[in-house]
Each structure stands twice: as C-alpha cells, then as structure tokens.
C-alpha cells in the first residue's frame, strides 16, 4: 500500500502543473463536492495525471479522525463510524481525535482482493489463535481519495468488489472466517488509456465525471513543463516554497467553495434542462441527472455563486455525460437490429 500524506515533504504542487485545465478542474470539483463520486481520467501516458491526483491532497482542508482507527472514522458522526469505534463511542468513551490531511490512497494494479477489502490478520491468528481483521485499502481510503492508475487493467474481481463498495459506501468482508463491515466512502479517481481496453459501462457509470486529457501541444507549454520539472527535481523544497503563495490561495478558494457548495440553489428550469439533456442522449438510468446537478453546483460554488446558471450545466454535462452515452455494448453497431 502506498499512502501519500501531505506531510510527506516533496509533492509537486498542484498549482505548478502546466495546462491540463480540464483535468485540474474535474479534480477540484470533486473536492468541492465529494459526493460527485470521482472522476475517470482517460488519456495517454505522461500527461500529469498522477501528479495532479497526488498533489490534490495538499489543497484539501484537514479532517478530524479518531486517532488510531484504521477506518478513519469521523469522531463527530456516530452513524458513519466503524463498528469498533462506534461501540466505544456508545460506551461513552472520549475518543482521541487527530486532525490530518485527506489521504490519497493508491491502489496498485497488482493488488489482490484481500489487500483491497481486508482479510484475516495472519500473524494474529497464528500467535493468538483468534480472529482479527487486517484492514485493507478500502479502510485506508475511507473519507479520502482512492486512486487507481490504469483502472481498466485491474483484475476483474477486484473491479467488482470496488464497484460494490463504491456503490454502497460500505465495505463488507465475508471471508476467511471473518465477518465484518465498515464504512468506505471515497472519491474514486481512475486513469486509463482507452487503447488498452475499455471499462465496463457499469463501472464507468460509478465515476461521476470523466475527462479526456491529451499531451500539451504548444512548444512553449512543453518547455515550461520540462523547466518546472527540472527545477522541482533539483530542489524540491525550494520549488514547493516558491509556489507556496499560489498554493495557499488555491487552498483558500477550495475551502470557500466547499463551504459555499451546500447552499447553492438550482431553479426548476435548471433541473428540467438537466433531465432533458439526459433524455436527449438516451443515457441509462438516473445517475447522470444526479451527477450533473452535483457537478453544476460545484462549478457554481467554485465560481463563487450560490445559484446554478445554464453555463454551469453546460460544463457539467460535458463532464458527466460523455462516458454514459452508450446504452449497451456495441449499440452503435447492433443498434438498428436491436431496435
């Protein structure tokens, strides 16, 4: 497991990433409204995808967690606590609280299912002869960001359990003598190169937004990328320091948008516009509507408005509909026959 906490000193600053505005924007929108449930980044290699995701944590406000709890329970919300913490809370125990940055947990392609969902603690079982849960990546990712590079290459059964947890917000372990469930709410960020095979629609649909990134194509920008990267590698500390002002500004803006987002209103006309967009494109189900509305609200909040305008929906639609458009596999080919 690779856990990148912001306290690790040398993360390339988000604000220093050249170009890739859509990518950065989609990530920020997910931060502003975590219920957007993630973003899928489609594009070639070497387009700052991973850098951006890793840098994202640095922009997020701190969250309060129960100290020592592997499931990152929120000390103020008993309903979303992990079972053990909840029992302690119910027993009237004062929980030790720690404030820390939101985590980005990386799920490697080679991850086995037991490492993802959690498993029997082998050492404990052998030493003590009793069962204990060894929490998996989904526990670490609770209330954080779960980052899956090359999500389309992930083993299929791992995708299935991921999908299951992402959908329910709960991870249930029923394996190896262990029966346990804990909250697993996370923002799912995936990257993929479509050349290597697509994701199943069911999983695509679980990503709130989808952006397509391409390499930068102006020479000036490319030069700037190389320059900054070189500067960062030569002296990371100084580089981060040089961008500290910008980072701080961005952090403030993010915090403001997060605060504003729940108050953003959308008129009935806006809602109707959203519904009609989904209908026009023949998108499956209703998740697209819900996501479009959430995204539009986040866009409005990011712009400092508390009212969704049509342009917000326009942008939200671009981010939310592209990957949901296909009704069935091969519909574009089988379409006439199936109809």
């Amino acid at each position: 497991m690779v856990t990148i906490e912001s306290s690790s000193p040398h993360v390339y600053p988000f604000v220093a990433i050249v170009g890739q505005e859509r990518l950065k924007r989609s990530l920020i929108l997910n931060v502003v409204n975590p219920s957007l449930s993630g973003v899928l980044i489609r594009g070639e290699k070497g387009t700052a995808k991973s850098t951006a995701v890793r840098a994202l944590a640095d922009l997020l406000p701190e969250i309060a967690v129960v100290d020592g709890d592997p499931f990152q329970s929120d000390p103020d919300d008993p309903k979303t606590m992990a079972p053990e913490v909840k029992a302690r809370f119910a027993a009237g125990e004062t929980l030790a609280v720690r404030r820390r940055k939101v985590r980005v947990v990386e799920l490697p392609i080679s991850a086995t299912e037991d490492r993802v969902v959690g498993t029997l603690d082998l050492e404990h079982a052998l030493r003590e002869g009793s069962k204990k849960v060894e929490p998996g990546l989904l526990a670490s990712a609770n209330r954080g960001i779960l980052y899956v590079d090359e999500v389309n290459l992930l083993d299929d059964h791992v995708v299935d359990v991921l999908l299951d947890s992402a959908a329910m917000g709960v991870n249930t372990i029923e394996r190896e003598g262990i029966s346990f469930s804990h909250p697993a709410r996370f923002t799912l960020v995936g990257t993929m190169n479509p050349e290597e095979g697509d994701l199943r629609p069911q999983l695509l649909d679980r990503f709130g937004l989808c952006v397509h990134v391409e390499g930068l194509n102006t020479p000036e920008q490319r030069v700037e990328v190389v320059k900054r990267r070189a500067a960062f590698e030569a002296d990371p500390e100084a580089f981060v320091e040089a961008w500290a002002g910008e980072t701080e500004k961005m952090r403030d803006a993010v915090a403001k948008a997060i605060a504003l987002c729940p108050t953003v209103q959308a008129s009935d006309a806006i809602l109707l516009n959203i519904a009609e967009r989904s209908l026009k494109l023949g998108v499956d189900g209703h998740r697209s509507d819900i996501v479009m509305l959430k995204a539009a609200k986040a866009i409005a909040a990011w712009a400092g408005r508390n009212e969704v305008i049509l342009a917000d929906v326009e942008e939200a639609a671009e981010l939310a509909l592209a990957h949901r458009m296909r009704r069935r596999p091969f519909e574009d080919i089988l379409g006439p026959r199936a109809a």
Partner: protein
Amino acid sequence: MTLQTKIRMTAASGDGRRVYPFTAILAQETMKLALLLNAVNPAIGGIVVRGQKGTAKSTAARGLRDLLPSLPDGGRPAFVDFPLGATEDMVIGSIDFEAAVRDGSVRFQPGLLARAHRGVLYIDEVNLLDDHLVDSILGAAESGENVVEREGQSLRHASRFILIGTMNPEEGELRPQLLDRFGLAVSIEGETDPALRVELLKRREAFDTDPDGFIARHRAEEADLAARLAAARRRLAEVTVPAHLTAFIAEICARNHVAGHRADIVMERAARAHAAWDGRSDVTSDDIVAVAPMVLLHRMRAGEPDIPPPPPPPPPEDDDRDDQDDRENPGEDQQDQDDGQDDRSPPPPPEDDAGEDDPSEGEERDGPPPPPPPEPDDADRDDAENAPPDEIQEVGASYAVRKLERQSLDQVLRTGSGRRSRSRSASKQGRYVKSTSRRGRDDLALDATIRAAAPYQKIRRETAKQALAVHISDGDIREKVRERRVGNFLLFVVDGSGSMGAQRRMVETKAAIMSLLLDAYQKRDKVSMVVFRGQEADIVLPPTNSVDRAAKLLADLPVGGRTPLSRGLGAASEVLRQALRRDPSLMPLVIVMTDGRANAGLGHAPPHEEAILAGAVLRERYPSAQFVVVDTEPPGVVRLGLAGKLSAALGAAYFKTEDLRAEDLVSLAKEHQAW
C-alpha cells in the same frame, strides 16, 4: 467481551448507513409491488430485478429493510447484504476456529445463510456472483434450510429468507435454470418523463444534503406502508383462490409455454399476496393479471407474456360438478410436486403460526360448493394456435443470437477455466472462493487450515513440547481454490476475400462474430482479429480487452480480393506466439471463418495445399489452442469441402454457415463436448 463476540455484535448492529426511504422512490411501481409481494409472502421465492444501471434497483431493495414487520420476539428481521467477495465458508457456515483453538470445543460459526433467516438476503449484481455460491443460496432459498457438510460438521438449520437479487443484464445473464428459481422478476428502465426526472432529482438531492431530515419527513408514510404490510401478512393465511381461477393460472402458464410447474405455484402465491396486499380475502382475476407478468418474465423464451382474458365470474348456481373435479385435480398435482413442505396451503410468512390457520382454510375449500369452471374459450384458443407466430420470429431472431454464444461458448470457457485452475502453473491471482486439501500450489488458506486443525488443539497442546497458540500438523494444511473469470482469449481469423461477399455470406459471418464478441464482452475475454484478403493478412486488432473496438472494426470490414489463407494462418500464429509468451496459461480459442478457397499464398505450394500445411503446423505448435472452423461456402454451389480439409488439419470443430442458425449451433455445441 471477546473479539469474536464483538465482531458478531457489530456486524449485527448494522453499519449505520442511511437508507433512502422506500416510500420516497418515485414511480417504478412494478418493482415496488413485486418487492412488497415478496415481503407479504416470502414463499413466493424471491425476486430478481433486472435493469440498467442507476435505476434505483438497489435503493428499493435496501429500502424494503425498514418496512418489514418485527419478528415475534420483537427483534428486527435481518437484512444481509451479500458481498461479491464472500468465500464459501462464510456463506454456508463453518467451524469456529477461535472457539476451537481457545477451549478445544467444536462450535459452528453460522454463515450468511443463517444470519439471513427470517429476514432478507440481498445480492447486488447477482449475475456477477460465482456460480457455485448462487447454487448454495438458491438451494437454501428453495428448501428453507441450509445443509452443512464440511470439516467434520454435519448439521442443518432453518434458513428462510426473502431473496432479492439485482442485476444489469448487459453485464451477463444468469443461467436460465438459476433465473427460474427466483419467484418473480421485473425489468425496469429509467423514467423518460422530464418532469418526473426533475422530481426524482430533487428528492435525491434533498436526501443527499440532509439524509436524517429527509428520512424523518417520510417517517409517517413509511409507518403506514409498514402497517399495511403487516396487515397483509396476517391476512395472507385467509386468502383463497377460487377454483375457476386456479384453472385460469394454469391456462396462462400453458399458453406461455412455461416449462415445469414452478410458474403455476408462484403465480398462485403471488396472486394471494396481491389480494392480501389489497386487503381482500378472495383472489380475483385482477390479482392474477397483475402478477402474471412478474411470474412469466424470466421463464419465457422471449417477447411479451400472452395473458388471455380472465374467465367470466362463475354463475351463482352449481350445475356442473364433474367438470369441476376434473379441473381441480391438476392443480393439486402441481402443488404436490412442490417440495412437499407446504403442499396444501402456501406457507405463511416465516414468523406466523402456520398450523392454526391451515385447517380453517381446508374447511373453507371443502365446505361451500365450489363454483363451476369457466366455459373453455375455444375460439380464443384456436386463434392462438392458428395465428402465424410472426411476433416470436422477430424477437426470436435477436434473442437467438445471444443464446448462441452463451451456450456454445460457455462450454468452451468452462472447460478452459476448469483446466487452468487445475494446472500447477495457476497463479495466486483470482478470487479465493474455497479451500481444498489438495496441495501443490503453495497458496496457503490459513483460515481453513486453522479450522482443520481446530478440533485437535486440546490434545495436541497437552502432548506438545512447545507452547504454541495453534498446533498445526501437515494434514491440516489447506490451500486456496481460486476462480478467475478472465484469461480467455478469442482469436478471430476472418476471410475478407471477394468470395465472402457473395450471397451476403459476410453479413452472416459478421453476425456470428458479433454474437461471439458479445459473449466475450460478458465473460471479459481478450479478443484479437486477423483478416486476410488480397495479398495480405493483417492483425487488425492486437489482443485487447476492448471488445468494443473489435466490434467497430468488424462493422467496417470490407470484402474483396483474393484469399491468402496461409498468410492468414501465419498471422494467427504470430498473434498466438506473442499472446502465449505473455501468459503461458492462456487457452486460446481460434475461430477461422473462411470458405477455404485459398487462391493466394506464400508460393511454397499450391495455395490450398499450403493452407492445409499451415493448419497442421499451427495445430502442432500450439497444443493449448483450440480451433474452430466455420465454413462459409455457400450451400448452392458444388461444395469443394476445402474448409473441411483445413478443419481436419487443424483438429478443429467444424461448422457450416448454415449451422450458425442459433438452435443448430446450440445442439452442435452440445455434441462437441470436446470443444
């Protein structure tokens, strides 16, 4: 409190997720009704909800949880959310190794099937679940008990629950025999009315912003619905089906060509639940018409259920007793075949006291003279038989295509995965489904090992030289059995020459490939495609998981030019070589689609001889590959049988294009177990 009990306790207390209220779900009336009917009468046998993603399937299933009446002992019925990654021991139950190791006692640790007793077992994405787990679950659902025979344990316990499965059919179908075991099925789609969508959006947003407030606002409505549900359950035992309507049920089932009697039984139970839900004690034809589509949807081959007009209400006078008896008997026969446990009256909900209601119902049936049967509607029946079945034709065509690959390929893939998991080279990847005492892969299943060792701990501890927490001997070692659904590889070698364009051969060939691609998508196989035409053979699609790309390429595939068959086979060899180097455990299935009329080649020999030679080389070089030749030679002309010769050289299964008609290929595939 030991950790064990702590885990048990916390698991039972739920995870505290806030559930979207059932009553706040807009529209989707059929789905809601079907769920409620199952709650009224769990003997209906569960429900499978089929629909696109994002259509409130899961929301509705989970919402049902709060509506169920409390158990007689005052407890809340269990709602077990079945996780896809569950291992077999956790589903069925197994020995509790902690107890065994601690105090040497053999204690049964109940599994999910025990926990779901008297409650709901909910399986999201039921079509993605491993087949053998689905089998255990459906077995328990049907018999009402779970039989445990493992690790020296031999016991059975009651396991009656409402089974709810949801699935998105585009991810793959459930096997028909499994589908049939779900009592009801509903198919749902997203709403297309913009105003409704807006309302739905508003509610969802309101719930997401303030779940507790939203739930509180629906509390009264939820309580009303729960009360109605409880009342319907109480009433259910009194509900009877008039005899003439039993015949109506039989007629509906017969008319829709439903195999077996399960549909009749389920329809009767569902109709009674429907009447009880409506607050009545007599089933009317409306009840039956309302539930029939849910009963038939997953049991018919295709198309819409054909519901005949309900029989006229019986005249008040009783004038035809003999006929009545004839009518009633078949119905009883059907009931007798139902597992024997509740043949007379459909079983009451689990917590009801069934025994007391039974006699009264029996009296009621025997007491008043039964109403006469309806007049057989001869005219109507004749119509049904004489009418050309053009409707079936139309739908049947597209259905048949899907069936084709499922059945034929299933066979291929099943053999494939079975063989792979037995092989020593099997990797440690894949889902851990159960354990085995067979050794050899160094993939220790610790939980199963400790369980196997558990009963002997007391003795071993007394005799052991060392003080260990767990004493494990060689014979206890268990290894993991893993299942992996990926890893199959389909290589299409397609003849794109001019002769393939004749008589729309290519249209049919493409249709066949498309069917296979659809199956490959659902099974998540890798696919690759080689096309040969003119003087060239191209690997138009290198091995990829993107079946979609294959389909797009296929659609645009042109036809024309000569037939460089040996070049095509050469290109196939190259693809196989690379694919097998990457993953030697791969079992490629090579599907060659050609008329065999090779007329261009590498120049070593006459083209068709060269092709046959190439075929023999392929066969020898890739023993793990299986070959299929589809002969696309038109039937009208004199057959040259060249593809047949190629097939022999490859050691391939051989089909003619005209065999690609769905039913034929299915039967052929069944004969070809060697596939």
